[in-house]
């Protein structure tokens, strides 16, 4: 059975992440603080203008968008760049390369366990709290299905970007710098810091042609739109699928090419 070996990696991941209970508690506190800051910040920002709607977004829309973007970030961020970088520096990567499983897949599936726990412990509670606090401003209907599909695609795109960036570590032996650059670019250009709807014109168009908006903006736009037209759904998911395939292929090729170049310190 082919899937079984992957699912056992998932299981290990779940058990592993359950070991760090205190870490989960602190992370929840940190998230809570962040939500409080975002809430008050945008409340006072919206209080400074006369209109309720700015760039097609109300205060509630913006709040849901940003809060869920953070929840998605916590759920998707798996520090793959760190893991790869550390393994490259310590030489442990040699052991992983010898495993009878493709490294790219191995890494993904060994993180899948934390996806599952993060989903239930951070994303779902945040989602429920937001729906209750905003008195059902999140439309619950067919858009949830689109959202789910879109999130899965987003996870894959995010992982591919991480993997490509991690491969760069093979050459530079710099982890912190590469990782922080990636994180900053992704968070800003994906709309996780400020919703893309607020971006000024030329920048907005440029951002739509980049893969990053497919990570946070695409799923959240689909979620917030109560009755999306078929056209919107198809173009959004289609763009995501294109990026997903493109980035995966690029990552695979780059990795294959780089593997021939590396020198690893004796592990």
């Amino acid at each position: 059975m082919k899937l079984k070996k992957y699912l056992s990696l998932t299981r290990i991941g779940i058990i592993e992440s359950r070991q760090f209970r205190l870490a989960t508690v602190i992370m929840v506190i940190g998230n809570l603080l962040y939500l409080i800051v975002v809430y008050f910040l945008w409340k006072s920002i919206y209080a400074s203008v006369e209109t309720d709607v700015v760039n097609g977004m109300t205060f509630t829309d913006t709040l849901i968008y940003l809060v869920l973007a953070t929840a998605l970030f916590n759920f998707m961020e798996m520090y793959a760049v760190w893991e790869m970088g550390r393994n490259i520096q310590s030489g442990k990567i040699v052991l992983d390369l010898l495993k009878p499983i493709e490294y790219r897949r191995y890494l993904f599936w060994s993180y899948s366990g934390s996806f599952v726990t993060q989903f239930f412990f951070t994303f779902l509670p945040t989602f429920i709290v937001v729906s209750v606090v905003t008195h059902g401003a999140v439309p619950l209907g067919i858009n949830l299905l689109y959202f789910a599909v879109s999130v899965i695609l987003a996870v894959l795109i995010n992982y591919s970007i991480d993997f490509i960036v991690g491969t760069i570590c093979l050459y530079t032996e710099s982890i912190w710098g590469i990782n922080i650059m990636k994180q900053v670019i992704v968070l800003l250009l994906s709309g996780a810091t400020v919703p893309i709807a607020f971006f000024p014109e030329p920048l907005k168009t440029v951002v739509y042609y980049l893969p990053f908006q497919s990570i946070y903006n695409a799923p959240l736009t689909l979620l917030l739109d109560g009755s999306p037209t078929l056209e919107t759904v198809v173009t959004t998911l289609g763009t995501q699928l294109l990026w997903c395939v493109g980035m995966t292929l690029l990552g695979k090729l780059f990795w294959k090419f780089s593997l021939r170049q590396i020198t690893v310190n004796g592990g």
Partner: protein
Amino acid sequence: MKRKGLGFYLKIYGKILAQDLKSKMSYRADFIISTIGMIFTNIAGFVSFWILFRNFPSINGWNYYEILFLYGFSLVSLTPVQCFLDNNWSLRMYVYSGDFIKYCFRPINLFFYYQSEVFDIKGLGQLAFGIGTLIYSWIKLGLGFTPLILLKTIVFLITASLIMMALQNAAAATCFWIQNSFYLLDLTLKFKDYAKYPITIFSPVFRFIFTFIMPIAFIAYYPSLVILRPDEVPLLSWLSPLFGCAFFWFSYKLWMFGAMKYSGTGS
């Protein structure tokens, strides 16, 4: 043990610093990439404010340049913690592996010796960016320039630094009691993102929390008031240098208390 003077410590710091810089220079690519990464982070913060203020004229009565001033202020005040106390991030690893015991056998101040081992140069990029932002907003706000205002700025920058250092020390010191202090450290790192907003945006309850329980308002807001709003400086701003020293002293004692009860791992 005879107490060593300040000159003695400065001399030792210079020597250790030189060694550290030499070892860093052997990873030149890493150094360059990390510095660029640091500047990226700061530019991203700048850009998100720029986007925000293209849509909104002000936040809670604070205009674009005043907010930039707060941002620049927080960046400059974060430099010492970045440059001098970066080894706090590794503390939990040393404690966990037992390597920390080597620091306990030196005839100099334990805290000083431990922190002096790492000097993080990329903090200097942040310092330059922060000073640039401060000067830019200073000119745009037409604050004027007198020796007195310069003295005030320096005193309050030091105050803010002391508080940030205290927060980080205390968070790092928790690793003497709990296994994984990384999440607490990461939480204090996030504080700096919240510090760049005026505290008046929060409701009274959170204003109280962010002033007395998690003193992030002292990182930029209270000290900046002295320069930005000289007519309505609250008592807390004037008291903040005292608070800074007290917090730092307390965090140092906590750190040393943890280190003194450290018994090694036996290896």
